């Protein structure tokens, strides 16, 4: 039992932080938002740091790192409100592709590692809400897909999509497919999200695709991918909250009312204590999610849902309270704080909100409880 980071992990953290501080400050970020919410240059920057290779197996030109390194990276990206979908392209895609037939791996993984190919998960459907087993996209026996996926991260910037579809028509099992952006029958409609990042609606019409994971393991692979996403997002949220809390502390110590710094008001001090509580509980559960990622599916899913419940509560409380503590300036576009608030709000609704995951925790509850239960 040890929560210290290794020297290599610390170096990784420092490298990412330096990059973000230098090449992704608030003004640079604002320019990316204005340009649509995705910067290929920024993606190349992340690739340049080796991040796109991080989770790719060494056999395919990657570094073969694990969840802890992913967590370290995500925290720093969260701290800098980086919008490019690193968890999608750098963590989820390699994890899913590593389960694909060898030829597909050899085709895609090196390009993912090198940052040339951005592959994202396109699983959200209109009727599914947060349920992964609801899927109306259908695949024919020869892997031609028809259906629609919503709010696909950086959808109109990606090179390919990982698409769950029912293999063999309605009622059949869910398989995972790879769909190239330029395949026949692909239509994309891009737009911005409220946090400034980019997404798209994806429709497929008799679109040829490559089978990644068959219907026997497709849903399990999708669940695993989403769990990776939730763990990554937990770390991202911790980074974002940590920074937002620090900004708020700074503000309270600077801002004066009635002749004194408002950090001297006990009611605000206690609110900050409550905020700090949520931050540290969230950080604890981010560690928990990361360190449970390699457990057996049942234990993993339960742990991930427990983490998301805690993280969801923390995102909301920290976001709302830090905004409130800033007063008027906190709700303006020009102040960086409001962008943390919006990012945190959106994250709660990605991959299942607190209510959804509370339902999962409730459903999976056992007689004993605890970190090692």
């Amino acid at each position, binding site marked *: 039992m040890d929560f210290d980071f290794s020297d290599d992990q610390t170096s990784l953290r420092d490298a990412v932080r330096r990059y973000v501080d230098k090449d992704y400050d608030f003004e640079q970020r604002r320019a990316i938002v204005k340009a649509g919410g995705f910067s290929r240059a920024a993606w190349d920057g992340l690739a340049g740091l080796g991040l796109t290779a991080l989770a790719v197996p060494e056999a395919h030109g990657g570094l073969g790192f694990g969840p802890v390194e992913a967590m370290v990276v995500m925290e720093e990206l969260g701290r800098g409100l980086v919008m490019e979908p690193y968890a999608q392209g750098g963590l989820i895609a390699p994890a899913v592709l590593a389960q694909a037939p060898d030829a597909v791996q050899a085709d895609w993984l090196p390009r993912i590692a090198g940052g040339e190919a951005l592959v994202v998960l396109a699983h959200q459907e209109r009727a599914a809400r947060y349920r992964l087993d609801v899927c109306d996209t259908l695949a024919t026996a020869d892997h031609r897909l028809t259906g629609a996926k919503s709010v696909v991260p950086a959808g109109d910037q990606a090179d390919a999509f990982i698409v769950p579809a029912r293999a063999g028509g309605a009622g059949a099992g869910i398989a995972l497919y790879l769909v190239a952006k330029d395949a026949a029958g692909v239509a994309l409609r891009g737009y911005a999200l*409220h946090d400034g990042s980019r997404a798209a*609606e994806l429709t497929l019409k008799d679109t040829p695709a490559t089978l990644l994971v068959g219907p026997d393991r497709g849903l399990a692979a999708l669940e695993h991918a989403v769990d990776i996403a939730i763990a990554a997002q937990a770390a991202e949220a911790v980074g974002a909250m940590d920074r937002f809390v620090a900004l708020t502390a700074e503000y309270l110590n600077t801002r004066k*009312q009635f002749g004194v710094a408002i950090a001297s008001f006990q009611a605000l001090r206690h609110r900050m204590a409550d905020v700090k509580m949520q931050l540290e509980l969230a950080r604890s559960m981010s560690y928990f999610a990361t360190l449970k990622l390699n457990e057996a599916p049942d234990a993993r899913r339960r742990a991930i849902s427990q983490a998301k419940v805690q993280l969801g509560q923390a995102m909301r409380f920290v976001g709302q309270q830090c*905004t409130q503590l800033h*007063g008027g300036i*906190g*709700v303006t*576009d020009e102040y960086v704080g409001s962008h943390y608030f919006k990012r945190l709000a959106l994250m709660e*609704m990605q991959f299942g909100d607190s209510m959804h995951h509370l339902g999962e925790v409730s459903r999976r509850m056992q007689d004993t409880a605890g970190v090692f239960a």
Partner: protein
Amino acid sequence: MDLNFTPEEQAFRAEIRQWVAGHLPQDISHKVHNALRLNKDDLQRWARILGKQGWHGWAWPKQFGGPGWNAVQRHLFEEECALAGAPRVVPFGPVMVAPVIMAFGSREQQERHLPGIMSGDVWWSQGYSEPGSGSDLASVKTRAERRGDVYVVNGQKTWTTLGQYGDWIFCLVRTDPSVKPQAGISFLLVDMKSPGVTVRPITMLDGEHEVNEVFFDDVQVPVGNLVGEENKGWTYAKYLLAHERTNIADVNRAKRELERLKRIARAEGVYDDARFRDQIALLEVDIVALEMMVLRVLSAESSGKQSLDVAGLLKIRGSEIQQRYTELMMLAAGPFATPFIQEAMEAGWQGDQVGAAHCAPLASHYFNYRKTTIYGGSNEVQRNIVAQTVLG
């Protein structure tokens, strides 16, 4: 003790309801019921319709051209307007500056300004907040120096809601810097078309232009625009803040929005999800309790027999409820609330939606409504006030 409105009050309500049904433009109520964007024309159109009926200043006494309604009648009017989907009346003219002009303004000021406010023709803005003032309103820094027949005004106001449309602005200005803060303030009416007045937009977190900074650079204001006495402005300012409390809980709008929340939840498939539905049920209880508290205040105002000092509670609870329904609406839509497509918030937009059309404005509203616990005296300041009533 009786929960029911009297037959007279019910008849009054029916009359208002009928009038609103016949006069509120459907394109406007459509926007309100669907939280679509209201533009200046929408707001001013409704203001003028009310004005023509003599109801834009619905809380005014008869001597100044108002209907002279009592507290219950005013409440019923507000409720019928809210439930029918009327926009909130922009308060700076009819609700804020008008009572000050009635109470402390000169005969000339009353004759000059009140008709334009009642008719909805003249758009007023508020010049209270300044950069750095926050809850400490008496820390006014904007200077007004008397030079002959004019005050020369220099300084800056901020958070001026809808000031981009303003014809006039009422301002707290410092006319005597040598005395303690509250003692050197005056209350000035300023024509926003005066040379030296500059309005600059502040973009809010939802991307909207709702508030402004207003700069005063050697603006000459005739001394005739001083309300009441020089250096007595703080008294008038407090009088205004006391009047601002009307409808502070906004419970009627909350009832309307609760209905919208239920419609959205139903359409998104979560109304029958026990976990989500419990949250709606809790909110419904909160709204009924708030409405009962509002009715208690009305009753106390009407009879004059009890005093009920719960304005701070109404502000706190009302704003929390507003934030909660915007939050639940957003959560009902989930991922489909995350796209930021500003055009989709315009009525009649024909472009493609992401998810159902009702999803488009939900996150913006949630973000926007964070202001409700900050403005009008932050909820922290309100808690100070409430605590004072309990603890001294």
